């Protein structure tokens, strides 16, 4: 018990002493996950909107595939990407393995189905009268689609936040394609796994606390956006 208490005491010491190694790991984590999320949103939101707003052949099949992708095991994603990016793989010439670039691609692969699928659901659930209202006010088909997407913005944002939650907490894929190289591809989750293996709990606990704080912030943001969408108002959002 005392070792756990000591671990926490030292962990807080690391956090508040602004330890350079700790903050390098945190910044890389945010950089990798943030870039992956932006890419996943840039690709996933238009796909979700297209599936929700247009008559698409085999629409049910595409939506089912995206829903399946939401549960894609990170280690499986990591394994496939490893095979693609390894020297003998079809994308080996890109020399991406064990780089932050490979980690971004891995996390993008995990977040993309979440963002696309939840965006599709969010836009499909917008009341059809919104599209009609836009048309009655003189909207072009593109303006009509944008009005519907805008109406579903809070639910879409909740989907993006869910994607962020997934990539921030993920370890299986990035440890395979990133290699957990100190100062280069080492992020919070892979560091926690490594330091726990080594019995060095201070850094692991410190990062665990920060990760939990970020998870809490993501959950609160998710709740905020969901309630904003339901209420259509900023009043009583935290009730």
């Amino acid at each position, binding site marked *: 018990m005392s070792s756990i208490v000591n671990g926490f005491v030292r962990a807080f010491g690391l956090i508040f002493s602004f330890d350079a190694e700790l903050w390098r790991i945190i910044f890389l984590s945010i950089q990798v996950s943030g870039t992956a999320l932006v890419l996943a949103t840039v690709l996933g939101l238009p796909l979700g909107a297209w599936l929700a707003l247009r008559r698409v052949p085999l629409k049910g099949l595409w939506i089912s595939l995206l829903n399946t992708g939401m549960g894609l095991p990170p280690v499986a994603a990591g394994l496939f990407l490893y095979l693609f990016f390894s020297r003998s793989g079809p994308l080996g010439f890109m020399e991406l393995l064990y780089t932050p670039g490979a980690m971004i691609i891995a996390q993008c692969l995990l977040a993309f189905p979440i963002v696309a699928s939840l965006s599709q659901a969010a836009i499909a659930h917008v*009341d059809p009268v919104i599209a009609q209202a836009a048309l009655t*006010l003189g909207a*072009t088909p593109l303006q009509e689609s944008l009005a519907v997407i805008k109406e579903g913005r809070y639910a879409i944002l909740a989907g993006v936040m869910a994607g962020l939650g997934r990539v921030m907490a993920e370890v299986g894929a990035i440890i395979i394609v990133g290699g957990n190289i100190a100062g280069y591809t080492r992020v919070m989750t892979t560091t926690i796994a490594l330091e726990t293996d080594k019995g060095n709990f201070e850094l692991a606990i410190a990062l665990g606390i920060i990760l939990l704080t970020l998870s809490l912030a993501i959950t609160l943001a998710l709740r905020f956006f969901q309630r904003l969408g339901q209420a259509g*108002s900023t009043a009583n959002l935290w009730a």
Partner: protein
Amino acid sequence: MGLELAISNLAKTYNGVPILRDCSFAFAPGRTYVLQGPNGSGKSTLFRLLALLEPPDGGRVRYFANGRELAGDLELRRRITLVLPQTGIFNTTVFKNVAYGLKIRGVKPAQIRATVDEVLEAVGLARKIFHRARELSSGETKRLGIARAMAINPEVFFLDEPTANIDPANAEIIESIILHMKQEQQATILMITHDPAQAERVGDDLLFMKDGGLTGT
């Protein structure tokens, strides 16, 4: 001055059920027509077809200005508007709801602000300009729907039950707005109502629908 509108042999079927049958009529510019009829008789379907929200299965909808037939779906749609019974208010502020139709037409921000102020004053919502639209009462929401339509200064107004499901005070305000529009804007107005007294007060001409057929008085 409002546009002239002519429909000939208009027909619409949903899932094999005929909703509109052989509707023909000529609507003169600047006049106010009130359409009455039982629920399910095809009034709202007729309005959606006239507002070019969906195509008819048979017959034609034609618009004229100074005797010349108008063409072009978007150009024409931007000269007319339909206030839907459910209104379809966007989940944003009152200001942005009213500004929407102007913004998509590329109107400059200063002019948008001036127009929004003017129409919100006309419908009695000036004090709520920056309120969230979804927080308005049902009567205020109906008034916002009309303000949003007035802002784009249409030449033909379709009002689908603008006073349904609201209290008498709000219904009276909306009726006075419609009468004001009739006098000031000289648009062609078509309105659906179930209130015969209101139809008499507002309409220049009364029309009836029954089983998908349209008759005038």
